[in-house]
């Protein structure tokens, strides 16, 4: 291997430059200023400052960690050097930016940026000093984390992230619960006008840290006991948690009100699509970049069949059009699937991307405008109704989407552990061998495409009925990439991963307007980072399956379960 990971001064300077450039990048793309409006702790720390601090803390930690094989203090010195170099680089940016007008090239190199980066200092000298010393301090702070025992380190990270997260959520919380009686005192305790209060943040910090530590303790203590739980107990607990979870899900819109329900329905629409793409990409290993096409087909079918506007055709009801939309998407999945049956890997990805783009361009063109509205889209799509109950606003559509998610997840879950699911996974692993094992590749692939497309069609139909109008620009490649990103972040092939991924990647930017601008930037970076660092995702499939199997075994073959390692 390499020379025993000796972390030299040169490495520290390199790391410092990397850190500095990351911060420069974050500043020049405008994140610092955009996030600076949001106070995490009132009057003290903004989100914009946190995104400047984070690279210093994290890279400070890593460099100290890599230098660890030498004495402890050496690592901290390396961190210090890193922080100083990075700080100097930022100081240089501030100097250049305040003397030369960078704005003609970099639109975000505005005076506001340099004001934020000056941290309230006036003269260039004290700005430089602050940045260099501050950089060094933060990097050393990151470095000291290497000296802590791992349980304490984890608790601190969790506690600090909780403070930031709750700080970010302030606005949402007050929109959601603002009208409740109990909210007022809570709000006053934790929050100021903008951001958390100091007492609030300390309370959150302590609670989160203690909770994490206690979990850690109970886990180490009870690791031997677990086997005692009987199968009946497990089953009872599981059923109870399903029931409780179900009731909670039904009550969500009542609790949260309109705005969060709106976000949840958007997340839900992505979950349905994600479940479908997860079958195609995650189970069957067919990278489909034109997935949005089926979403579009579902939405347009719903639109054309139900609209009462200019393009009105048959004016069906939602429920009549829904199966047609799903069926047409399914059919399209099969038809577009046939030509790519013999294609592998990257060619398949490009061809499906081509299909998606062709459909989008054709929909957008004047050619089919008399039928499907061209760039003006389809308007006046009626809402779904059921026996006089109208799925009018987000609080009602929520149930429709929830129903869709449950349906689709159920199907995906059943398929995953069945003969068909195994055939998909075998195909993903090795197509030739799968075929030699008697798996009909044509049927198996087409079933994957069809199932995935049907899910997307359902999602599209719900989308159309939710919005009441659809436009071609809602169906571009970015949607496919969003869905792909969310299943990759969640863990490719993993069902809970789809849900988690959708909440993180779709929910977050919907919640935070300032995030929305950097959404695709972050997705892109996330895709690269995930592939480099954690290609299996945050809730990976394999371990999940194993957990499931172990439980099954405990139920079916209790006597032998003890033998399992």
């Amino acid at each position, binding site marked *: 291997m390499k020379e025993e990971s000796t972390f030299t001064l040169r490495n520290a300077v390199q790391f410092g430059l990397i850190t500095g450039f990351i911060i420069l990048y974050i500043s020049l793309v405008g994140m610092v200023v955009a996030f600076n409006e949001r106070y995490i702790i009132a009057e003290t720390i903004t989100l914009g400052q946190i995104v400047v601090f984070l690279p210093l803390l994290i890279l400070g930690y890593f460099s100290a960690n890599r230098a660890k094989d030498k004495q402890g203090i050496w690592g901290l010195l390396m961190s210090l050097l890193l922080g100083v170099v990075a700080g100097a680089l930022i100081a240089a940016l501030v100097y250049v930016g305040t003397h030369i007008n960078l704005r003609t090239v970099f639109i975000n190199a505005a005076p506001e940026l340099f004001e934020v980066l000056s941290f309230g200092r006036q003269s260039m000298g004290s700005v430089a000093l602050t940045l260099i010393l501050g950089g060094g301090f933060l990097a050393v702070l990151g470095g000291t984390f290497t000296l802590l025992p791992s349980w304490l380190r984890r608790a601190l990270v969790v506690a600090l992230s909780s403070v930031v997260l709750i700080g970010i959520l302030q606005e949402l919380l007050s929109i959601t619960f603002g009208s409740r009686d109990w909210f007022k005192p809570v709000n006053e305790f934790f929050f100021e006008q903008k951001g958390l209060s100091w007492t609030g943040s300390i309370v959150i910090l302590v609670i989160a840290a203690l909770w994490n530590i206690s979990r850690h303790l109970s886990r180490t203590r009870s690791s031997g006991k677990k086997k005692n739980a009987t199968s009946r107990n497990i089953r009872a607990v599981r059923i109870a948690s399903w029931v409780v979870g179900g009731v909670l899900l039904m009550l969500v819109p009542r609790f949260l009100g309109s705005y969060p329900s709106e976000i949840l329905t958007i997340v839900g629409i992505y979950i349905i699509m994600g479940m479908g793409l997860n079958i195609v990409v995650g189970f069957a290993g067919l990278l489909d970049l034109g997935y949005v096409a089926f979403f579009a087909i579902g939405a347009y079918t719903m639109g054309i069949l139900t609209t009462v506007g200019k393009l009105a055709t048959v004016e069906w009801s939602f429920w009549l059009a829904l199966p047609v939309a799903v069926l047409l998407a399914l059919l399209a999945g099969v038809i577009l699937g046939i030509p790519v049956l013999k294609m592998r890997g990257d060619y398949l*990805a490009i061809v499906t991307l081509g299909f998606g783009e062709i459909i989008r361009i054709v929909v957008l063109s004047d050619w089919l405008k008399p039928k499907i509205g061209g760039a003006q889209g389809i308007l006046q799509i009626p809402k779904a109704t059921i026996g006089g109950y109208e799925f009018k606003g987000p609080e009602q559509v929520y149930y429709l989407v929830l129903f869709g998610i449950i349906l689709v997840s159920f199907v995906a879950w059943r398929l995953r552990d069945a003969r068909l699911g195994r055939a998909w996974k075998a195909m993903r692993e090795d197509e030739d061998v799968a075929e030699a094992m008697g798996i009909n590749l044509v049927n198996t692939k087409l079933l994957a495409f069809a199932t995935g497309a049907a899910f997307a069609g359902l999602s599209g139909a719900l989308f159309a009925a939710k919005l009441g109008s659809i436009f071609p620009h809602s169906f571009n490649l970015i949607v496919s990439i969003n869905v792909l990103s969310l299943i990759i972040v969640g863990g490719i092939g993993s069902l809970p991963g789809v849900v988690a991924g959708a909440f993180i990647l779709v929910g977050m930017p919907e919640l935070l307007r300032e995030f929305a601008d950097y959404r695709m930037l972050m997705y*892109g970076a996330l895709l690269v980072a995930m592939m480099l660092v954690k290609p299996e995702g945050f809730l990976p499939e394999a371990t999940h399956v194993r957990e499931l199997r172990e439980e099954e075994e405990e139920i079916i073959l209790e006597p032998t379960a003890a033998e399992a390692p």
Partner: protein
Amino acid sequence: MLQRFFRKYDKTDIAMWLIGAALAVIVVYGAVQTLSAGKYSGAVWRDFIVFGLAQGSVYALIALGYTLVYGILFMINFAHGEVFTGGVFTAYFVAIALSESGFSDEHWILSLLILLTVAVVVSMAIAVLLERIAYRPLRNAPRLVPLITAIGASFFLQYTYRSLYGSGVKTYPDITQLTGTWNFFGTKILKTQGVVIVSSVILMVGLYIYVQRTKAGKAMRAVAEDKEAAALMGIDVDRVIVNTFALGGALAGAAGILYAMLFKQVNAFMGFIPGIKAFTAAVLGGIGNVPGAMLGGLFLGIVESLGPSLVLDGLGIRSPYQLKDAIAFLMLVLVLIFRPTGILGERLSEKKA
């Protein structure tokens, strides 16, 4: 008899033939309709072809980047279109500065060379960084992994450009000396188109000589043929791969300047569609095949320029030019489906493709 036939060719093959035949009939029918209607004169067709050649040569230059990288790593550098954008978008600011100072009016050739240098250097740097940060750690990963990385990198770069330089469309300044037409053996061609065609031919010939004759080019071909064997022969494979990315990036940077001469407008997302088209061109010529990429680019450029008027118009489709990108994508799909080894034949065996 019939049973024998079905044994030899399975159902999907037959379905594909039928689709192909139907498409061919539609294309021929549309072309015949247009030509018999006599809507366009000979001069118009000639202009279409010259324009097609000009944009095709830009595609060809970008396509070379795909082909070189694919030839060596068997990966589609999905972010190559963004490598192209990086150079031309950055050079825009230099172009504005040169134009405002009046320098480009006096020394237009020199100022073009400066722009070319800026674009080439920036694109090259992006390509090399991309390789170093995103692709090198994944060289032995399953094939979908680098592809997903490349897709991520592509979007990351697009939105980086947008956030750094702004989301608006920016227009390159005109070069006064290049407005108007040249008379070329009795046909008039736009000066910009002429310059684009000539410079890309020079670049392509240069590249061909580089790959065929120089030591670095030979090392590149050796690595493309067999990485392990090349390494055993003392070739530094990593270095060759970096060289390949740099070369592809440089060509993309040059293509960017030529593109700016033809179309003037640049924005953060401009590279995506030409990138995909160039990939189509690379596949058309047989991916991994250098002369193939050049021919593929020219061919695609002409098809795209002629297709809407020649075929779609005859089919009675309204505003056929809106569907020009759809034609390129259709070509892409058809080529990958019917002839994934390209028109010039394969340089790659089936297992690699």
